């Protein structure tokens, strides 16, 4: 995928996450699949998406930007992981994606401040339909451009960083996966609390755990 392609994909998925439809194509699982596929290494891109999906399971798209923006973080991480194979680059791509997604989150806050001037002021004496429609459509366009810029610069920079650091990653595959596992465990704990807490959901969770483990051993 070219840098332009990645930017356009990032812009489109950024729109999906809050501005248009919210079909959740912007969630890491779907965004990783799309970016991996378009980058020519579906498996690596999707894997980056899976890891970010686990991390961002509790990052609900609600209110202010307290979490990294999943859509841009995933396109950056997945496109980078697809161009640089191996466990080290994957860890670097995911880490970079998370950091860059945070910038994405800040850029959303910035746009929401800017939008105060883009949307019509209800107090304004002359409020015309054209102004209402124009302001709204301009805000949509700005969000697309924002997503594309964040993604494009992220993919470009991540490529440089990973190419530079590639080969210096000291951990083997098992330890890299172990590092991912620890991060995922935090997410799982938060999610169980959000589903009602251990005390209330103990039975269901443990039954699921036993079932999942049994299924895994039989697979």
């Amino acid at each position: 995928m070219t840098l332009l392609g990645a930017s356009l994909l990032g812009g489109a998925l950024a729109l999906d996450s809050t501005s248009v439809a919210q079909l959740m194509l912007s969630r890491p699982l779907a965004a990783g699949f799309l970016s991996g596929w378009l980058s020519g290494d579906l498996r690596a891109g999707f894997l980056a998406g899976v890891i970010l999906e686990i991390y961002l399971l509790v990052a609900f798209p609600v209110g202010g930007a307290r979490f990294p923006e999943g859509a841009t973080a995933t396109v950056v991480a997945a496109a980078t992981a697809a161009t640089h194979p191996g466990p080290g680059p994957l860890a670097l791509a995911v880490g970079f994606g998370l950091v860059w997604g945070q910038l994405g989150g800040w850029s959303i806050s910035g746009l929401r401040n800017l939008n105060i001037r883009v949307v019509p002021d209800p107090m304004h004496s002359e409020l015309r339909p054209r102004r209402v429609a124009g302001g709204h459509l301009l805000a949509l366009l700005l969000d697309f451009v924002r997503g594309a810029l964040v993604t494009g610069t992220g993919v470009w920079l991540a490529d440089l960083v990973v190419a530079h650091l590639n080969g210096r990653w000291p951990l083997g595959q098992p330890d890299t996966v172990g590092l991912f596992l620890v991060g995922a465990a935090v997410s799982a704990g938060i999610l169980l609390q959000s589903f009602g807490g251990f005390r209330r959901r103990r039975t269901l969770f443990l039954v699921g755990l036993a079932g999942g483990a049994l299924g895994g051993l039989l697979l």
Partner: protein
Amino acid sequence: MSAVTSSARASAFLRSFTIQGSWNYRTMLGGGFAFALLPVLRQVFRGPQLTEALRRHTEHFNAHPYLAGLALGAAAKLEADGCDPELVRRFKTAIKGPLGGLGDALVWAAWLPATALLGLIAHFSGAPPWLCVLVFLLPYNLGHLALRLWGFRTGLRWGHEVGRVLREAALGRRTETVSRAGALLLGVFAGLVCTVGPAASAAGLRGGASEALWLVLAVGAFVVGLVGGVRVWRPAAVVVVGAVVSILTVAAR
């Protein structure tokens, strides 16, 4: 409602998919709400009356995006029926709270993570990527679109009296059911991760390079998340990114 054509209503419904498109810190969904209602308002009002109608709908509004259509449908009915503008304002003020609270709990905190877990479970069961994406997005969006359609139609039908229907729909009870299913799915997911693939061997749970350290750390991390809740997410992310950076720094020496 006679003054409003069905195509104007359909257009308002389609436009409601972009209701968060001009989210801003002053009027939040105000710009999007007025944009979505515009096709209806154009058929009901002319001239200065249209300006006044636009004014009351560009004002501050907030709701869960999937449920905002309920307020939109109701506003369309109220305006088409020629209701007192003050009633429209009071209705929109009163409906903000329930639509935000109920929607966030049902969709963002329960339905989204539960269906995403379906996709993750498919992945750890060995399903191909396209299938994982499908088992996440298909059920998610069936629920999502059903909720949007139900909300808009309920609003159109009941106007400012949607409260009773909303109470009878018992969204709170549905949220509880989805959360329970979510806890079960989370268990299945955790069980799978610990028994298959590279994560299982990394944690020494299934042969391979046994590293009890990772297992101990993971269990500790799980407990930290469970006790601390969502506010530990950011510190945890900083620790993970920090670990990646420090590993690199140590290796560089």
